[in-house]
């Protein structure tokens, strides 16, 4: 049964077309954005630098390796002051509009920026710890605020030497397909395309009556369909991430930085980081494994939702749009500035954030659960486990109750 359900899922032509387009986009973006700065004119480079900080460059030509020998690892007082000094010099040069920078100088400039930045982050981290400590000293030690501050502080204490310069460029992009939000869009498009027909098509093709009248047509069939759907997701998910992995590996010419602390992870478009105050003491490879696992779980959770919608709505198109609306809702809410009160919770604990992953670990976020601070990602996982269990139960239940009356 499973085999034939798999056949149904994998013989839909449009999934191949879309998959191919997705890969093409990934390659295109990779080629165009990563090597961008290598061929950039001087004034463009300056503009980009001012706009976003040190821009994206690859590590291919060994320039960064050399710089790493000198600047790499956790920052020290010496490195910071030296970097600041050198940056000022180059800045003066740029302002005077004097001769253009060589690629080596550009790279050095970036590294100086990163080191100086890391110094700032180190300071922010210390300040954060101090403010937490003073909160702990001030508030009642039975209060929630106390427990929360204490939890965050103890997590931050676990971090050591997290800020600095690491050869880590290849890694940022590996977490996302193109970009965090894009990975949600690409993955969910493929999931919706592949899975909205699973139940709905039995209805529209008028095969439901035949199926429901068979021995296993009301029970085991659902299991077979679920297994086939999960297989599909496994294939889509792993092939997209494999493509992404090799794209970045090749473009950046290496996997250095796998053991760097995540606090130095840059965002996709520049050397800036969003993880400066992240309380998670993970190396990049650990975080990569965690991100992918969570994203995969999110895809699985989404799959069950899509399957349920497919069964209830009985129409592939409607199922596609309703599922799409559920995923996109938090995005729309935020655009409409609906991010307060109940909406804040809806947006935070959404399939969107679950699949996007990157907001879960950037900073310490905890919620008050019966007076105890529980980390946001943990609650999110918990909620989706419960929700998905309900959805699965409901799917089996409703399918068994289905009638064919027209």
């Amino acid at each position, binding site marked *: 049964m499973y085999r*034939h359900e798999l056949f149904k899922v994998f013989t839909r032509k449009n999934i191949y077309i879309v998959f191919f387009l997705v890969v093409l986009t990934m390659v295109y973006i990779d080629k165009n954005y990563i090597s961008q700065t290598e061929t950039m004119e001087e004034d463009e480079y300056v503009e980009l630098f001012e706009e976003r900080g040190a821009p994206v460059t690859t590590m291919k030509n060994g320039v960064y390796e050399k710089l790493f020998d000198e600047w790499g690892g956790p920052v020290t007082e010496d490195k910071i002051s030296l970097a600041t000094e050198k940056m000022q010099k180059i800045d003066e040069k740029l302002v005077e509009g004097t001769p253009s920078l060589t690629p080596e100088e550009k790279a050095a400039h970036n590294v100086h920026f990163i080191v100086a930045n890391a110094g700032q982050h180190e300071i922010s981290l210390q300040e954060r710890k101090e403010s937490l400590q003073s909160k702990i000293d001030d508030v009642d030690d039975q209060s929630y605020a106390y427990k929360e501050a204490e939890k965050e502080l103890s997590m931050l204490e676990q971090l050591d030497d997290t800020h600095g310069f690491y050869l880590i460029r290849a890694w940022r992009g590996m977490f996302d397909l193109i970009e965090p939000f894009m990975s949600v869009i690409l993955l969910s498009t493929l999931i919706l395309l592949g899975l909205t027909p699973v139940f709905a098509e039995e209805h529209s*093709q008028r*095969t439901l*009556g*035949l199926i429901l009248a*068979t*021995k296993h047509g009301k029970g085991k069939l659902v299991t077979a369909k679920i297994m086939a759907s999960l297989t599909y997701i496994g294939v889509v998910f792993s092939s997209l991430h494999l493509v992404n992995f090799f794209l970045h590996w090749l473009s950046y010419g290496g996997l250095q930085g796998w053991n760097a602390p995540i606090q130095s992870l840059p965002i996709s478009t520049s050397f800036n980081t969003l993880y400066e105050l992240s309380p998670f003491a993970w190396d990049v490879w650990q975080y990569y494994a965690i991100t992918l696992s969570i994203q995969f779980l999110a895809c699985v959770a989404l799959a069950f939702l899509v399957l349920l919608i497919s069964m209830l709505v009985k129409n592939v198109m409607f199922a596609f749009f309703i599922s799409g609306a559920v995923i996109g809702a938090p995005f729309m809410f935020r655009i409409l500035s609906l991010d307060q009160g109940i909406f804040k919770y809806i947006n935070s604990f959404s399939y969107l954030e679950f699949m996007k992953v990157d907001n879960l670990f950037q900073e310490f976020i905890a919620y008050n659960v019966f007076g105890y601070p529980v980390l946001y990602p943990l609650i999110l996982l918990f909620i989706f486990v419960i929700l998905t269990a309900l959805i699965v139960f409901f799917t089996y239940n409703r399918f068994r109750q289905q*009638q*064919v009356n027209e």
Partner: protein
Amino acid sequence: MRLLIDNVSKKFKDKWAIKYFSAELTEGVYALLGPNGAGKTTLMRMLADISMPSTGRILLNDKDISLMGDDYRDILGYLPQEFGLYKNFTAVRFLMYFASLKGLDKKFAIDKVEEVLDLVNLTKDRKRKIGTFSGGMKRRLGIAQALLNDPKILIVDEPTAGLDPQERIRFRNLLSEIAGDRIVFLSTHIVSDIEYIAKEVLLLKQGELIQRSTLGNLLEQVKGKVWSVNVTQAVLPEIQRQFKIGNIQRNESGIECRIVHDEKPVENAVAVHATLEDVYLYFFDKGAIKDV
């Protein structure tokens, strides 16, 4: 084996598609006869466990089929009146899929699939995609699917619609062959389908069972009520307005009309031998489809 339909109704909004239908069925072929909209399909869906009765219950050997669930469907074969098939499946794949849905062991299924393909004369098309099948071939594949698990209860809703005369005869023979130790419940408009094979005929009119008896008995009831008369073109409309008309046939001496009426309808009418078609006409007030 005893299938008891006990006061079963199906209500859609405020329309009764089936109204307090009761019948007891044992091994043999039962024909459900009724005009369009009589509720045949609705009743069969409830027997196939894909639709819930609004009232009443269906019992197999005193067990409620809705409680038997998978066990009931295990011995069920069902061919809906209208159904779809997976266009990009081949006939063999389709049947293998249904074999697994019916819980057949895979090794056993491989042989069984060939067997049913042969029964419905599709062996040479076994590797073709269903999307390229004709309407009649699809229906035959549907029949094959219903037979896969050697069902003890076979429910077929207008199984011969769209089949050519040869295949129809083939199917009729198939049914009478297998009916010995199972309950076959079949609906049709085509009286010749059941003429020789039905153990009993159930007449359904507007959701209600109006008659249930053997073919012989039904024929007995219309005996002496079937007439043939030669009329002219001019009086034909008047005749049609007044009486239930069966066949109308032109011949050298005018137009020969078959009339079903309790008394002699007109002077020159002669009594003729009754057929099942006349029975249909007599009870349903409407011409049966003349076919084959």
